[in-house]
């Protein structure tokens, strides 16, 4: 080929560009097509679970990102991001999304605040190919959960617990204990509100589900109910709920408290049984609130521990227990009697002080006779 001939085919900048683009297309077109047809829909919200993860996941505190997947009314009702900060909040998982009809899903999303697993109700609807969050629990409900976490009594000696306030642990597993939450006017069993008068039936049903599951799974099971109440609730409410739980079939009753690190903890209550004879009766320390302190009694000995700054004096309780039990066989338990003016938090504080001073003591809280 002569230079003259070659001159007509000399690569101009335009030709080079066309050739480059053509090569690129040939190389990358299959992959582009592959990616296009295998990727989720452009907005990534082809499934309800994708929407839930997008709204409650890593970008929970990005209002713009959230609202892209929410109806305006739902975005407005979702007040939770304004009530907690990113350090306190953790998205856990979809607790449940149920099919209501072909275009509607309803369910609950699990999250944790300060290490406490909680949940929020959600509703999603399909609009075209995409799903959107159309409703969440009312703002008052969202506030109430957080308020309760802060209002739970403290019990540093209580056993750490994996459960939360929605009847599930942090990985979404139902807790062995049926959870009864009584806060203000609401009572909920395993996170679901219960109508007045329906508590025993709801607890019995929740116990029955666990009993059947345990039997099918060949697991050891004891009907167990955990009670979560605010520290300022009347103690009579706790004893009333415990009695209701036992009537519904619970063998074990525990009290939910904030443990040593502020996270979920349980104080297990003893099971009261009837002694066959007077001699078979367990020796117990009885604790009774007095106007200015707490009276501890064992056999015919008593000690009074004054309130320290208006609250239970844990060190004083420990000293009184030691004084009462010195030189005698160790008592089997401690029974706190709550009268009409006693607060739940005061009972927990006494139980916790007893547990801290004498971990072997079986603990019981009863209504004052």
């Amino acid at each position: 080929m002569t230079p003259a001939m070659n001159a007509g085919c000399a690569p101009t900048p335009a030709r080079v560009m066309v050739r480059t683009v053509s090569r690129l297309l040939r190389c990358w077109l299959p992959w582009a097509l592959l990616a296009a047809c295998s990727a989720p829909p452009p907005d990534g919200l082809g499934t309800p679970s994708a929407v839930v993860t997008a709204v409650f996941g890593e970008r929970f505190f990005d209002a713009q990102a959230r609202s892209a997947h929410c109806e305006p009314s739902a975005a407005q009702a979702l007040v939770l991001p304004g009530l907690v900060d990113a350090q306190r909040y953790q998205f856990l998982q979809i607790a449940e999304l149920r099919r209501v009809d072909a275009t509607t899903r309803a369910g609950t999303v699990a999250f944790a605040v300060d290490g406490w697993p909680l949940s929020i109700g959600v509703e999603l609807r399909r609009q075209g190919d995409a799903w959107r969050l159309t409703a969440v629990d009312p703002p008052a409900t969202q506030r109430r959960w957080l308020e309760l976490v802060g209002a739970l009594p403290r019990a540093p000696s209580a056993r750490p617990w994996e459960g939360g306030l929605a009847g599930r642990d942090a990985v979404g597993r139902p807790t062995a204990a049926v959870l009864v939450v009584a806060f203000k006017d609401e009572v909920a069993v395993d996170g679901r509100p219960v109508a007045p008068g329906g508590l025993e039936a709801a607890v019995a049903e929740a116990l029955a589900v666990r009993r059947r599951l345990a039997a099918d799974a060949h697991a050891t099971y004891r009907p167990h109910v955990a009670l979560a109440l605010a520290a300022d609730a009347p103690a009579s409410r706790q004893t009333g709920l415990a009695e209701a739980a036992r009537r519904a079939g619970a063998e074990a009753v525990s009290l939910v408290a904030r443990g040593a690190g502020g996270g979920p903890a349980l104080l297990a209550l003893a099971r009261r049984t009837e002694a066959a004879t007077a001699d078979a009766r367990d020796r117990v320390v009885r604790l009774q609130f007095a106007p200015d302190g707490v009276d501890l009694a064992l056999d015919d000995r008593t000690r009074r521990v004054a309130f320290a700054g208006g609250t239970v004096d844990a060190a004083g309780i420990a000293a009184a227990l030691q004084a009462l039990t010195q030189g005698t066989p160790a008592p089997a338990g401690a029974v706190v009697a709550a009268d009409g003016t006693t607060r739940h938090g005061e009972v927990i504080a006494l139980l916790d002080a007893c547990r801290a001073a004498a971990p072997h003591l079986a603990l019981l809280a009863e209504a004052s006779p």
Partner: protein
Amino acid sequence: MKPLISFLFLAGCAAPPLASQDAEAAAVALLSSRVFEPPDQLRPWFVEGVEPENLPLRLVVDSPAAYDFLDVQRLRMIDGRAIVTALVALDGEPHTLDVWFEHRNGAWKVAGWTHVPHPADPAKPAPSAGADLPVPLASATFRGDEAPPALALDAPSAPAEAASAPVRIGVQRPQVTGACDAAALHRHAKTLEPALERCWADARAERGGRLTFGLDLDPKGRPTGARVEETTLLVTGLGDCVEGVVRGASEWPAPADGLCTVRVAVTFTPKR
């Protein structure tokens, strides 16, 4: 070049990479169109050790034509697993079946299932599963739940009759003003009988008699006022004790609408 592009296009679209999908999308992709593929082709969709040929959906229908995926009835995440309750038609009849997926090597893969499909009604909203979950995943729920210690506290005396309270309590049907359910209130008031027995015993009352208490309930069924209105039992402490019992009794049946005032007569009859 064109055939190659077409081939790659088809291959790409026919086998969506699992890693790009969430668990629900993976479940829908598998259950809607791939259930009856040869086991070798399905194996990447299953965790190691779980055999595709054992998937119940492949066993309970005679032919792929008798199977149809309808929808996801329920999705739950438990311990990192996605538990998908699939709504499927088997021989034209709607059923549900639980299939669970685990995230392995960047993809959601079938890790197990319940063996028996259950009849279902797609027209009805799926109820909440509550604490229910597939049995193979249940045992961990009960791990570490300790038995409560027991305290033997009561010392019953020998004859059963003597062990019970020395008084018989009769709670009369309440008189109500307002939107109260008298029968429900009566049932609730009767649950207070043991506490009323203790009041009588603690007050060291000896004679029988009648006591009528009044009770005001708010719309939630909470007592806003409780008082002894009349009594033939003039025993120190008894009235206060009864008031305390009535006021402290939680969860009275709530008035259907608004407030309610209740009067309940209680008779105390010594057992002699």
